[in-house]
């Protein structure tokens, strides 16, 4: 089967998006993403999790226009609080806080925001085009996959997540395993035997990923804010102004922009990695190659460019394994996987073969969302300090209502809302004891992928476990799993600089 980039389909996908309603959904998505990304404690993941249930009634294009708008806007907007209040909106923006806030303290907050959004835009656009080029190549490889290869790729994603989330690899792994156990609840995928349902009928179909996401990401934040809120507490927000980018400035730094975007795309495409790794790798790489390394940490524009280009390049990269293999790269793409399934689409190699227009539509949505993000980021910078000034005393109760309304939308029943609340309580307890919740969610997504492929592979090989080693691709992925886990453990979960940034924040 031979297929590659089809320009006819690319053109028609672009035209299909040129509809006022679709463009409107992208605009709303980007604005919602920027608001959620900018408010500390809320993230792109929270926003996508909260708003996915409301896309049930939308068609594929409008649904993804909205969700990918949130995805791009949310990833970028984490840099706004990093710059203005020295609190990264998401782990991927921690490195931005080092130089961005230093610039803001020098009275150049507008400049820092401008550099941040322009670099994010470049990274996002670059990775969207890489998605177009590499998705068909991945698909060609994935078409040769059997159950053992799918199992090995899912294990690769799982182990990488466990090794990078949080300060303790053991805790990350345990959280991932617990997520897998939660994923086992419901009918067994091969024999249809109910497992761990305790006779509750609503659990027979398993725990839907959306209440889990709402509980583990949004409600845990609500509980965290509940404990930390003090009456009359206000965050010190530095003022920002509007600074438009100058082409010459970026042309001078084209090497850093390009290198960081490539790093972001590649890191994003590896299941289980994420923007935090991409941002720190690019930051270190930019510092290593810079003529002024001493400026890094003290307000270096190159530092912001490196972090933000890589951070947003992850968006396109992370979609590659999602649509080619059906394996989400991180928590947000796990939610996007649910959104694809809601639309009746099953991600995997056959999706590109049969629905190439969907890949090109995603590409154009990402490009348009990134361009809108640039416009809102540049012209809205004066208002960002106002978003950050919305008191948590008002915002937190509204988030609670959105959680309940979102949970209700999953199955038109309050059972999912209660499930989200219970998982939120469990997740918060785990968080307080230093267990990361992201691997738990990924475990819930990857567990039900790993188990049937593992069992199918064994059945197809007459229960010979060597099947996973005998297949060259499966063996390669398992070796990669070992190497990745080992190297991540050596790095000590993100390195000293991340810890320094966390402390600074």
């Amino acid at each position, binding site marked *: 089967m031979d297929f590659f980039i089809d320009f006819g389909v690319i053109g028609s996908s672009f035209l299909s998006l040129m509809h006022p309603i679709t463009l409107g959904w992208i605009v709303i998505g980007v604005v919602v993403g920027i608001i959620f990304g900018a408010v500390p404690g809320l993230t792109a993941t929270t926003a996508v999790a909260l708003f996915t249930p409301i896309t049930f009634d939308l068609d594929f294009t409008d649904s993804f226009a909205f969700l990918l708008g949130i995805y791009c806007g949310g990833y970028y907007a984490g840099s706004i609080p990093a710059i203005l209040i020295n609190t990264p909106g998401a782990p991927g923006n921690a490195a931005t806080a080092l130089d961005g806030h230093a610039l803001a303290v020098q009275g150049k907050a507008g400049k820092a925001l401008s550099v941040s959004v322009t670099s994010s835009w470049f990274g996002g656009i670059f990775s969207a085009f890489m998605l177009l080029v590499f998705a068909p190549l991945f698909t060609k490889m994935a078409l040769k996959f059997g159950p053992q290869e799918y199992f090995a790729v899912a294990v690769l994603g799982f182990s990488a997540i466990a090794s990078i989330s949080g300060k303790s690899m053991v805790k990350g792994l345990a959280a991932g395993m617990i997520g897998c*156990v939660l994923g086992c609840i419901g009918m067994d995928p091969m024999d249809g035997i109910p497992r761990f349902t305790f006779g509750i009928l609503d659990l027979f179909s398993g725990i839907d990923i959306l209440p889990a996401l709402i509980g583990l990401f949004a409600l845990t934040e609500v509980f965290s804010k509940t404990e930390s809120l003090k009456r009359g507490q206000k965050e010190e927000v530095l003022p920002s102004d509007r600074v438009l980018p100058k082409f010459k400035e970026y042309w001078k730094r084209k090497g850093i922009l390009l290198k960081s975007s490539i790093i972001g795309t590649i890191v994003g495409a590896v299941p289980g990695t994420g923007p935090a790794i991409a941002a720190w790798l690019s930051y270190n790489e930019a510092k290593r190659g810079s003529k002024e390394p001493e400026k890094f940490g003290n307000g270096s524009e190159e530092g912001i460019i490196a972090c933000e280009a890589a951070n947003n390049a992850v968006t396109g990269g992370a979609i590659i394994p999602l649509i080619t293999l059906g394996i989400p790269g991180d928590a947000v793409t796990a939610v996007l996987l649910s959104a694809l399934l809601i639309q009746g689409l099953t991600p995997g190699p056959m999706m590109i073969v049969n629905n190439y227009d969907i890949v090109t539509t995603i590409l154009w949505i990402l490009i348009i969302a990134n361009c809108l993000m640039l416009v809102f980021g540049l012209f809205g910078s004066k208002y960002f300090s106002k978003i950050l000034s919305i008191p948590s005393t*008002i915002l937190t109760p509204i988030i*609670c209502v959105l959680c309940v309304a979102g949970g209700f939308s999953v199955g038109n029943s309050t059972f999912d809302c209660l499930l989200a609340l219970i998982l939120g309580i469990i997740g918060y307890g785990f968080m307080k004891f230093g267990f990361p919740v992201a691997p738990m969610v990924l475990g819930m997504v990857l567990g039900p992928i790993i188990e049937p492929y593992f069992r199918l592979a064994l059945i197809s090989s007459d229960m010979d476990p060597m099947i996973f080693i005998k297949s060259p691709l499966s063996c390669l992925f398992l070796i990669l799993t070992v190497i990745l886990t080992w190297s991540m453990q050596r790095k000590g979960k993100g390195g000293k600089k991340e810890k320094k940034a966390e402390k600074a924040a």
Partner: protein
Amino acid sequence: MKNSDTGSGLFLVVLGIAGVVYTRMQGFRSTVGLSPAFFPTFLFVAIGICGLILTLKSFKLEKAGFPKFKWGKLAAIIGMLAVYIVVMDYIGFIISTIVFLLASMWFYGETRIKIIVPVSLVATAIIYLLWTFVFNIPLPTLFL
């Protein structure tokens, strides 16, 4: 107990053992290939091993206390959310949401009536209208 990791580790060990015992007790049988009990058993064993490693590693750490919870505040918001969810089925989304927003904003420290009343009414109206008319997702109403 030396620190919170010792407690977490022991909890995982107990969870692993309980999980293995419970899975075995279910007597899952498969017609083809591996039993449906295989994967959960493997997971519970792995959780137990993680717990054991965590406990052993914790002995090398400095003595430290358990994380502190603000039980009163947490119980209040969890209770409010639980009541809100349960009551929503009976009195509908609109009334329960307005009451929840008023109560929770007050609880979080926003006591200015001129702020909490309009915010509660407007936020409820916007969410209800968006869900019902834009996203076509019916929310519970009083007369359902």
